């Protein structure tokens, strides 16, 4: 799960970079940047949940 979370973080960053590189209009570019950030947030949530809590370690 942790690996999946980090993969999503990188994938989200990839979406953001692709949006800036390929799109020119501000609206679609901003939409894809926020979509990429959304994927990053999902990855972050998975990474957080994948780490053991409290004394479970």
């Amino acid at each position, binding site marked *: 799960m942790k690996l999946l979370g980090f993969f999503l*973080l990188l994938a*989200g960053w990839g979406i953001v970079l692709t949006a800036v590189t390929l799109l020119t209009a*501000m609206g679609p570019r901003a939409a894809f*940047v926020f979509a*990429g*950030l959304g994927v990053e947030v999902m990855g*972050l949530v998975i990474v957080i949940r994948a780490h053991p809590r409290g*004394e479970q370690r």
Partner: protein
Amino acid sequence: MTPASVPSEAAGALCLVFILLVPLAGAGLALINTGLGRSRSAAQLMMSSLCVIGVAALVYFFCGFAWQGFPGGAAHVFTIGGKGWNWIAAEPFFLRHMPLDGSPASLAALLGMVSVGLAALIPLGSGADRWRLSAACVSTALFAGWTYPLFAHWVWGGGWLAQLGANYGLGHGFVDAGGASTIQVMGGLTALSIAWIVGPRQGKYTSDGMPSAIPGHNSVLVMFGCMLALLGWWGLNCAGAVLFNGGQAGQSVLVATNTILSAATAAIMAAIITHTRFGKPDASLTANGWIGGLAASSAFCAFVKPAAAVAIGIVAGALVTFSVEWFELRLSVDDPGGSISAHAMGGIWGILAVGLFADIPSRASESTGAAAGGNSGQWLAQFLGIATLIGFVLPLTYGVNWVLNRFVPQRVARDGERQGMDLYELGAGAYPEFVTHSDEFSQR
């Protein structure tokens, strides 16, 4: 592209004085981390701080600056769709061929050398009481030799983030006057990685995940650290504004004013919130609010009016206060120094605030090699920087420290944590005349 321009010899000399103030921020952070940790680990934490600053400066001298570079210097660039993506510098190692004569490049190298030490101190706060000295030094070497220079090149070395304005019309490109991203957020995200990898202190969480309070051992050190940190931050923000954002020497007054206003309002906000919630103001959270305000100010200090700095500081203080609780209660991340909240969260808010409040003069982008542009799209450039920090820097720093943990275990042995890091790692306590924990003095 031309190197960052320092207007005159007097401004260069002033910039050097600003840089020489920066180690005071490091001293402040070391005192804060130590005061918020346990008394049985105080000497080891101060020793770790000194070693970390030393290792960071040496490794940065060996290879760090070669990869960070400065605007207009040699760099590796690849092209996508006709746009150049400047991703890493190609300067010689060991600062060879670098005239250390007060030129902008030499001042950038000196600022980088002290800044990387400051950033490397931040994870010591989250790993306090359980992060081994040797592991902290090796981790710092990797940070100063690779992670920090790579991202610092993108922001301060004329890299692709700084060029977003010239290449893609996003305002002035990613702007960060005093290192909110390169120092504060990078240090804060590394602190998060370390906290995850070493895990919480023994006894911090019960089996059902409820945290126990482990108060810091010396509030006086913490508060004095906050005051020292202000001096260092003044130097850091003023030097960054002059060197990397085309600021004039006289603009330092605005930078210093915004810095103290942001820190002051953030600390007062934290004190008000804790007083309202708990009946009395909390000293450690107020200190974290102060540092959070300073971290946020690093991004915007040269580009907003003082009234905006006050507003940004208020949000920073509230954000840091609730974030400390969120990390401890909801995420089970044991961060004794509050480093993640103060530096990462405060820094991210500051970066965002640039996009919302800043009026950036064109010389700011020209000094990092980008063409002058308007403020349109600046907020998107700032979001792109934040996306890069979370989407690239966090996995990178976590991965580096995870691999390191396979070879050099980062967490001290269970017995060492019980005895205290001072006795276990250094053989002597910080306060030998005060026996406060009877179990500290069992034989190793």
